[in-house]
């Protein structure tokens, strides 16, 4: 038996993975090989050291920290999902509300027919239309500044309330499903 093979067998012997014949062969080799005897003693010393070491205890806060991180992550996900849903819903509603107005304006100013038929005058008409819209918005903002601000605040409050209702519903559903 070569020393390299004996080394591999020593490791297997420490793990109780040698049969009697293999153990006898290894013992024969060890009896006649000083270098392997030294290695065997080192391996046994290492084995005793590692085998005598207990498991390390976790800090008591580990469970609390894990639960807190899970809770925070779930909250963040719910908030992101709820917020995205609300934002998309708001955009869709606003688009639906503004669509008839925009279409009416486009038709009234002749931009829509120009866009459909095309032609060199289209760009000039579009610029003129944009300018008109900008001026109209400025006049509206000056005239209806207070009502617009009030409307914005109401929308914000409504969005927050809806978000809170949404989060509450998801949390109740989650708690009912998982009794962690």
């Amino acid at each position, binding site marked *: 038996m070569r020393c390299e093979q004996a080394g591999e067998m020593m490791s297997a012997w420490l793990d109780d993975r040698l049969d009697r014949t293999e153990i006898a062969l290894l013992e024969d080799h060890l009896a006649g090989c000083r270098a392997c005897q030294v290695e065997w003693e*080192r391996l046994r*010393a290492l084995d005793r050291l*590692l085998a*005598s*070491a207990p*498991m390390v205890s976790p800090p008591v806060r580990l469970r609390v920290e*894990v639960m807190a991180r899970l809770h925070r992550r779930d909250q963040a996900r719910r908030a992101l999902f709820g917020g995205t849903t609300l934002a998309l819903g708001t955009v869709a509603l606003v688009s639906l509300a503004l669509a008839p107005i925009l279409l009416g304006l486009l038709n009234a100013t002749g931009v829509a027919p120009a866009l459909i038929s095309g032609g060199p005058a289209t760009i000039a008409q579009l610029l003129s239309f944009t300018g008109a819209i900008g001026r109209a918005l400025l006049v509206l903002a000056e005239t209806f500044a207070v009502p617009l601000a009030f409307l914005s605040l109401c929308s914000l409050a409504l969005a927050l309330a809806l978000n809170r209702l949404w989060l509450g519903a998801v949390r109740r559903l989650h708690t009912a499903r998982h009794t962690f």
Partner: protein
Amino acid sequence: MAYQKPVYNLTYRMLGNAAEAEEAAQETFLRAYTHLGSYDPKRPFRSWLLSIASHYCIDRLRRRRITWLPLEDEIATVDGAAEISPRAQGEGLTPVNLASETPNPETTVVREEREALIQQLLDCLSPTDRAAITLLYWYDCSYKEIAETLDLTVSAVKSRLHRARRALAERIEGETSYAL
């Protein structure tokens, strides 16, 4: 969370300091919770958790090679007599520093020195070899279980264990007072 201790012990043995071990244990539980759907019930749950923890720690150790980390970290606390590793129980070992539930200062010092020595030894191994040695000594895993946990072949596990033991045995020379 009945698996706190096995998971934390693995992360501590792999990473070598309490702060990183705690963070890694938390991350293991979060990943397990997130990927609970991919858990195969035929597989032991502990083995699945240890696999997640091992891979996380191996990745972290590989990243550590290019990231500077503090060398001085607190030594984690170690449990008393009831938590001798499976191999130690099998060999009937009752180390002197585990004999009492209220160790005196001298035994505490011996215990801490032994823990420091073990971590020094483990630190010299590659991440995967460190995981293999840890799973063998603290979890009494078979070669097959280690192979499944670390995504290796059984022959690769045997060869890694042999190589790791030789490396550790060479380093342990001169420190045998702890092991004998």
